[in-house]
């Protein structure tokens, strides 16, 4: 057991550190540890010899020629000189493409919802990420049902707006992924048809416990402001 205490110190000594007094004394009296230290030193000697042998190898005489040739043949064209710019250019291009996709996204299929009752029901967001004619999100002929368009998402709140009073920006009302948007639309449609009540919102085939976040979505009626002909005629 005493030898175990010196195992680490023996490796230090083998690697070149001077032996502390305690280790020195132990080595004087312990043949096994002396043998251990000798083995460690032989191991290092073997490693040193192998490394030295490998790293004494000379390259072929052609190496310098190859390097000169490769360097001479390397193309110092502007494209290469500005090669370091490529990551930035690629990132910018990716950003532009992503922006174009977001802005040009087509509207999701809209579930049919009975909107006959003039009650402050949960509403179906009509234009999830979509744009109306001429790039505007304003429907061509805004009906009362259309005026209800909009919703508050669970994670990213949509802005309430007064349809007809302000221009509606051509950007998504609720920033959710397409899959989430579709699920949300279906759920809201089901609620609207009174086939589900909000606390038990869910998707067929999935346990409702997994949809706790969806069930907490706060769907509030939007403020509906009657169209002002004086304002809309000017736009």
């Amino acid at each position, binding site marked *: 057991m005493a030898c175990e205490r010196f195992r680490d110190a023996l*490796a*230090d000594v*083998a*690697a*070149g*550190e001077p032996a502390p007094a305690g280790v020195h004394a132990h080595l004087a009296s312990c043949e096994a540890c002396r043998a*251990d230290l*000798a*083995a*460690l*030193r*032989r*191991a*290092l000697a*073997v*490693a*040193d010899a*192998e*490394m*030295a*042998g*490998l*790293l*004494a*190898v*000379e*390259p*072929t005489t052609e*190496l*310098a020629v*190859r*390097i*000169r040739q*490769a*360097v*001479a043949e*390397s193309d*110092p064209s502007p494209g*290469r*000189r500005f090669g370091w710019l490529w990551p930035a250019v690629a990132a910018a291009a990716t950003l532009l493409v992503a922006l174009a996709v977001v802005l040009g996204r087509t509207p999701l299929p809209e579930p049919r919802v009975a909107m006959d009752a003039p009650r402050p029901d949960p509403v179906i967001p009509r234009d999830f990420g979509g744009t109306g004619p001429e790039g505007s999100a304003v429907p061509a002929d805004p009906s009362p049902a259309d005026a209800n368009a909009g919703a508050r998402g669970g994670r990213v709140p949509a802005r309430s707006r007064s349809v007809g009073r302000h221009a509606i920006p051509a950007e998504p009302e609720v920033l959710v992924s397409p899959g989430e948007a579709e699920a949300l639309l279906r759920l809201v449609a089901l609620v609207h048809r009174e086939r589900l009540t909000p606390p038990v919102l869910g998707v067929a085939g999935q346990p409702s416990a997994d949809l706790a976040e969806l069930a907490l979505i706060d769907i509030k009626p939007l403020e509906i402001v009657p169209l002002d002909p004086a304002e809309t005629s000017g736009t």
Partner: protein
Amino acid sequence: MSLGPALEREFEERVVDSSTLAFRVALSVLRHREDAEDVAQEAFLRAQRAFALLRDRDRFRAWLVRTAFRLALDRLRGEKRRARREDAVAIDAPVRSESVEDAAARAELRARVAEAVDALPEKLRIVTVLAAIQEHDVASVARLLDLPEGTVKSRLHLARKALAERLRWLVSDSGTR
């Protein structure tokens, strides 16, 4: 070559001066002569592109060592699917009149040492490799790696200790004693 005449001349001096260093650093990782030469060549190509910033000899060599080491590691990782390199190492072994058994034992020993070196953390490994190159003392390794000498000594000690512990069984079992 887009360098001006003065830079060209300096770069040529670096090729003469440091191509063997780049080759050996790559060889320590790859243990394959042709691959190591490819890596050395690639390291010089990259060095040429940045040569305006690397005119100082020490700075150039430090950059070259790091680049060659990194390129060699990348290449090795990319070639893991290829067979282990014992055979390739034998290319560089001195020709001896030894028996088949001795040659096999020697190859085994070399492979185990290579494994032990490869298992070192990269910081310890590069110090070990550079120190094993004949003309490098602690001070020159420190310059090459842009590290304080104390750090190099400390890392070298840790590396040697790890190698001794890892290879102890080898000398105990192989009858090398």
